[in-house]
């Protein structure tokens, strides 16, 4: 009796599986099967993230040979864990995700590993007790971004009195961009630091106070464009000319920041490139083809100075 039930269940499951694969097979116009990818994005907290999402969705398209299930976690770990478990249930070929926080993934990462599904980490990293949790990691090197900004400052304004607008204290971009930048320009040249929490409003408030506290400052390094834009407003309000009286160097390269660069209010931007969906697609194809992939892939960041043109900015994807 018991056995019979089990057999029926197995039979049903098999029928269902056949039906499902049948469905999948119909979609493949080119004859090759689509690669089923589950992607869990952490949210849409910034313009950068939105551009990243669009890039991933555009690259992992049906035309490119992917069957993408995209889930936005709205910055909640529990949503993300649920999405990952759903992906295991759906038995996707590859799971990719940008973890919203570093810790608390042990259980679900073990489940993914036990299910034998290769994992691609995107942009952020995890801290876990699971051995060898992911196949490959792809993202930006925040420290390198800070280093590039610092090298430009050291080459062009070696005697600058620098004020540093820090991102949210303790976040990886804040720590790494600061470390990279400080190593290049020398800590003795940084006369002050304050956080602007990566936002324009707080970047403005911090700069207002800094203009008073450090009247000798003549260069601001902001850990992102938004805080740099806030600094521009504060500098203008104080009757100084941003980009001339006070040099502004930022990281990110979002549209408003690039526009400020064209307008001469920013002096240098190190791009933090969100458009690497094509690189993720390439990695996933290599994994499915059984090729060996590098453990880490650094997304190449460009840097821009005031020589860029309006046409160049208008042509950018984000």
């Amino acid at each position: 009796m018991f056995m019979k039930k089990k057999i029926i269940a197995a039979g049903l499951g098999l029928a269902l599986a056949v039906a499902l694969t049948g469905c999948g097979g119909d979609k493949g116009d080119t004859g090759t099967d689509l690669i089923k990818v589950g992607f869990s994005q952490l949210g849409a907290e910034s313009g950068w993230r939105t551009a990243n999402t669009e890039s991933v969705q555009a690259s992992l398209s049906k035309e490119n040979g992917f069957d993408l299930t995209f889930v936005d976690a709205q910055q909640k770990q529990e949503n993300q864990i649920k999405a990952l478990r759903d992906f295991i249930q759906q038995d996707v070929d590859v799971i990719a995700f940008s973890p919203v926080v570093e810790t608390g993934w042990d259980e679900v990462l073990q489940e993914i590993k036990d299910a034998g599904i290769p994992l691609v980490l995107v942009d952020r990293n995890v801290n876990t007790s699971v051995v060898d949790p992911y196949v490959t990691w792809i993202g930006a090197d925040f420290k390198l971004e800070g280093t590039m900004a610092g090298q430009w400052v050291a080459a062009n304004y070696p005697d600058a009195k620098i004020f540093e607008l820090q991102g949210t204290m303790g976040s990886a971009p804040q720590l790494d961009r600061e470390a990279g930048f400080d190593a290049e320009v020398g800590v003795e040249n940084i006369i002050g630091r304050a956080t602007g929490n990566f936002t324009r409003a707080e970047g403005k408030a911090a700069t207002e106070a800094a203009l008073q506290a450090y009247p000798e400052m003549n260069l601001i390094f902001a850990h992102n464009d938004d805080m740099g834009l806030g600094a521009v407003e504060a500098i203008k309000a104080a009757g100084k000319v941003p980009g001339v009286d006070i040099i502004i160097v930022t990281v990110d390269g979002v549209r408003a920041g690039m526009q400020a660069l064209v307008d001469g209010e920013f002096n240098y931007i190190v791009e933090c490139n969100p458009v690497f969906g094509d690189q993720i697609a390439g990695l996933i194809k290599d994994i499915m083809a059984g090729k060996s992939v590098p453990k880490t892939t650094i997304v190449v960041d460009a840097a821009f100075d005031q020589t860029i043109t309006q046409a160049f900015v208008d042509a950018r994807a984000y």
Partner: protein
Amino acid sequence: MTQDVINAVGRETVSAPSLGTRILTHHLLWPAVAFVVLIVACGVFSPGFLDITIRDGHLFGQLIDILRASATPLLLALGMCLVIASGGIDLSVGAVMAMSLAISLTFLKGSASANSVPTALVAIGLGLLIGLAVGLFNGTMVSVLKIQPFIATMIIMVAGRGIAMLMTKGQITTVYAAPFKAIGSGFFLGLPIPVVIAAVVTVLVLVVVRKTALGTLLESIGINRQAAHLAGVPAGAIILLVYGLCGLLAGLAGMVYGAPTMAADANNIGLMKELDAILCVVIGGTSLAGGKFYLSGTVIGALVLSTLERAVIIFRFPSQTTPLFKAVVVIVICVAQSRTLRERIARRSLRVQAAKGEVTR
């Protein structure tokens, strides 16, 4: 109080407290001292801090910046102060800020005439309306359904950002509209518009609360709702009113705060601002237990809060220590305000005086 203390020591009574005693026991003393000390310390540490100049036809200077930065926490704290006086609390104000900004900017983005003044007024009206609606929802939960305020307002604190996210479709809605932007970064008669808005609202609330019986009725509800109800105070209606007002002001605060950048970031606008508002109220001398409340103290509380945030940079403290610096100042103010501590000190000094008196006699 002086009377009790003196009786307790067993000395002959004094007719009325002296001016000095009245000042020393005044609820505004310690927050005002903290504010003045902070401002003076900044002025000494950083010459020019106290200067106010006229630039492009409007006032400019660190003190003006502090006033502008105080506007948002003050708008939140005025409503919060009344809610706390009724014996409640409103944890939803930060989320309401995000909701009001989300609805007004989403409306502006969809509008063909975002740069016209009437459109901006409709957008502001929508933001105020959603704030009022949430406030009345909170008030109904508390006054009609008798749900504990902490829980009732936590619903919107949690769900509000989700609702804001639905409005903005999970993205950061940005739009450019000069008339709307002006409520956050414009000037009126040389003063920043947020300061003007906060000042007008403060005066209106003060008049409504203190020139009518509302303030007294509110205190009676906060002290003992049952007794107030039995005495004929329409407790339910008044509670609904203060939550509604608190929501309305939070909606206004969201737009004033978000207007300079015109970016409706549902995740981050107003994050933790409910705690800042509660802090302003507490620094101002109002007890979280409800009852007696001090709107003037709340104004000073908001000024202290924004001065603290600025002072950290002026004093060149690293940003890691900001929360610690804030906490230390708040602890000092709260301890200085402690009634029990002040009574103990008063009793001790009286005892010392009494002992001296016996020796000389």
